[in-house]
């Protein structure tokens, strides 16, 4: 569905179907209702086919029998109506804008920002469509890409073709917030390295790692935005480029990896679109801290409880993670990516990454 107008028509149809169900319920003398999967950590399951974590079978029915849930459904009706109008007029807006627009919706006015966010997520689940299809723009930008890949972006100012090494500055190509408008044209890449920190992104660039190994460097900018994860997924799926993730060595960074590889709990309904199950974690591993004697900090209380929570998270239930997390709890240490600098500025590009990438079979030199 890369033709925007076709996509919009289909989306509008899906939304009107929901409204029609309610219409019929009301006309038939029934209190309108809607069924949604339960959205907690205890209701995500591994889907063998797509290899991602999705919501399981637990469902909750919401009906208009109380003032609270009736009002919730009223708000949903307004949102559907708002999106329908937006699609018809070919406009888009951010969640925050919708929140402010609801000022005029009387009883359907949102009480708080996260209420409108949650509602859009519900609609994503019900329609099985991404919010981008609703013309809802995220606030956050996507990440930057630097490497041997060419894209064609369908912008409001026409089609732009950009090579992410030759046609961009040192800061790279910015992933737009709607990745569906980007076509992946061709590439010459051996792998995509998704990097947590800007410092390491620049280090690899400065050391010419992208040229030497034909690697696409991608700066995640912390917990990756939806657009970033979708882009990684598409590069992996459409172009078949292996994806590896390179982060700091602490529990929060492992969650970054998990959200790239397995999907997040909050967006489990989007896992098929956003998760890249084949993405591999290449460090910093707790065993690296030990092996390379990296400068390290003590774990904080929050770190320890985050690590312990990960031990019970189904997404980390592998031998690799169990071993590494337990090792880290035992050492009581964490290290940043850039701690490799203590062994020299070239260590990471000359030794660590080549050996890691060979070990997992991404590099065959």
């Amino acid at each position, binding site marked *: 569905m890369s033709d925007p107008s076709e996509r919009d028509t289909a989306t509008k149809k899906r939304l009107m179907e929901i409204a029609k169900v309610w*219409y019929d319920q009301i006309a038939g003398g029934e209190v309108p209702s809607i069924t949604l999967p339960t959205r907690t950590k205890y209701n995500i399951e591994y889907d063998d086919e797509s290899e991602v974590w999705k919501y399981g079978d637990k469902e909750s029915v919401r009906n208009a029998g109380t*003032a*609270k849930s009736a*009002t919730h459904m*009223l708000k949903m009706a307004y949102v559907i109506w708002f999106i329908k109008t937006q699609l018809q007029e070919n406009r888009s807006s951010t969640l925050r804008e919708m929140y402010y627009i609801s000022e005029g919706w009387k009883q359907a006015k949102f009480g708080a920002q996260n209420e409108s966010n949650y509602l859009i997520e519900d609609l994503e689940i019900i329609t099985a469509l991404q919010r981008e299809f609703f013309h809802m723009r995220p606030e956050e930008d996507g990440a930057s890409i630097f490497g041997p890949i060419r894209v064609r972006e369908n912008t409001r100012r026409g089609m732009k073709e950009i090579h992410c090494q030759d046609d961009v500055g040192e800061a790279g190509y910015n992933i737009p917030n709607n990745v569906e408008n980007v076509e992946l044209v061709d590439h010459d890449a051996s792998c995509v390295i998704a990097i947590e920190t800007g410092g390491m992104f620049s280090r690899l660039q400065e050391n010419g790692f992208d040229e030497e190994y034909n690697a696409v460097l991608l700066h995640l900018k912390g917990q990756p935005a939806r657009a970033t994860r979708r882009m990684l997924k598409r590069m992996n799926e459409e172009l078949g480029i292996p994806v590896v993730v390179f982060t700091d060595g602490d529990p929060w960074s492992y969650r970054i990896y998990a959200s790239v590889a397995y999907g997040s709990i909050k967006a489990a309904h989007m896992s098929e679109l956003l998760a890249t199950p084949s993405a591999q974690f290449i460090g910093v591993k707790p065993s690296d801290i030990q092996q390379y004697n990296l400068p390290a900090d003590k774990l904080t209380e929050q770190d320890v409880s985050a690590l312990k929570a990960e031990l019970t998270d189904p997404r980390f239930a592998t031998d690799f993670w169990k071993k590494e997390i337990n090792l880290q709890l035992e050492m009581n240490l964490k290290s940043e990516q850039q701690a490799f600098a203590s062994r020299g500025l070239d260590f990471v590009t000359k030794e660590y990454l080549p050996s890691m990438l060979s070990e997992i079979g991404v590099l065959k030199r």
Partner: protein
Amino acid sequence: MVLADELAKKQRSISVAEFFEKNKQMLGFDSPTRGIITTIKEAIDNSLDACEEAQVLPDILVSVRRVSNDVFRVVVEDNGPGIVPEKMPSVFAKLLYGSRFHQVRQTRGQQGIGISAAVLYAQLTTGKPTIVTSRTDAKNKAHTMSLVIKTETNEPEVLSHEEVDWILPHGTRVQLEFKSNIAARKKLIEYLKYTSIVNPHAKFRVEIDDESFTFERVSSDVPPCPVAIKPHPYGIELGVLKRMTAASDLPLKEFLVESFSKVGEKTALEICSSARLDPAVKVSTLDLESLNRLLDAMQTTRIPAPSASQCLSPITDELIVKGMEKEFELDFIKARTRPGNVYGGHSFIVEAAIGYGGKLPPEGSAILLRFANRVPLLYQQGACAITNAVQNVNWKAYGVSQSGLPTGPILILVHVAATSVPFTSESKDAVAAIPEIEREITLALQELGRDLKMFLSRRDRNKLQDDRARAICSVIPLIAAKVGEIVELPVPDTSLIEGRIMRRVVLKKSSAGGKVMIHIDNYTTKPQEISLYDISGDAAGDANIPPSFVSEMDGEYTKIWKFALASGEAFEVTYTGLGGGMIEMQGVSENLKVVVDLDV
């Protein structure tokens, strides 16, 4: 060594009055403010106890007047049985003199020390004697005495004594003067208010300087006077047992039956056999070794708890509720009197009450009223076993938030009645942490907590039903309108839903384009007689159904329609106007009524 002889010369007896003169903080006279409260409390305790013994409805006057800069005159007058003239000096001017110390029953005062301590405190600070008037009978005149305590000997000294005329046929009046300050005023009123709650049969007239007010009685039944009982075997210590046996000429079995409560022949024999003692042995001949065995046997043999009903005088839950209603406005109120229980051989009963809502402060810690033997405890809340027990209840289980004490619009009352209340000190501010007592308090509060929870959840359920009605009648039509717009079809009719779900009488008022519409559906299964009140700026002159009655005041029109509506029928009136104002429907019972003002 000469020194020992020399030292010996200095040694002498110390009078108990001297002792307490020097240690007045032990009796609650540590500050001038505190002193005045303690004095009034001791006097009122005596009055109430006396009235109870005489089975008279207490009518007590409390008067506090400033006579000079820092000197206050306190008068407490009752209509009790009075005191015979011969006993007046000792009762008021001798410490450790009284009638209740050796009795096993619930009384307010106990130690024979309270009022005489007040007399001691008065003469110490102002030098003034205490003036006592008492009359025992309409046939006799009243006697007035002016009394002081001879501190060195703890003996009363009568400075004057005369017979006088008195308006009361019987009663006692005590007047003391001492140094104090009026910082005590608030605490004093609090004390009287709380005393009146747990003594609902008593009336208090209060005069503080130029102000006077009354705490009325809400019950005209004098509580039965607790009867003294014999000690229970579990509460005896070796020293006491030794004294009792030495003074008795009975054989062991008879001694046990005669001297202790709840010991019958069978139990007595059981004790004897357990102690390996001959039931026929004269108890005065028992040696220490045998007494030790006897005590052991007495305390390990199963003996029923002492019967609380005679020796204790609980307020009863009914009267606690009356007392609380009198002084507080509450939405919920419930009291419990627990069955009698024992600690260390002393009988006790715990009573508790919970009040909720009303005019109580909606936030902050609960108000806690502590009482022991019908006397309010005003100081040292933090050190008291009652407070402790209240804090240890898991109030959250009853839908009440908690931070130490429960929080919110809650009032908790706990009364511990006992033949001997275990205070932490003689100033009687706090109950000591006796596990048996704490357990009873906890149980009482848990029972009440369950009632409170029921009340709260019923209240919530009512809210819920209202909420549901509101959802269906005001939100669903909006959903219907919006959904219609989305699917581009006419707005679906929602009355079917309302009818099916609601089974109520639903009124909807809306205004748009200069038209006001009032629509009423009777979804109930019965016909309803309805009076519809519509008060607004609209005259409704063009109403399609003219009102049964219209009146106007200051530009506000009250329009009333009266009509019957059969089950399933609807009523609808429209008129030209701007709407707003107030709408109400009468004749339909509250729980069947839904009023939806769509303009709001």
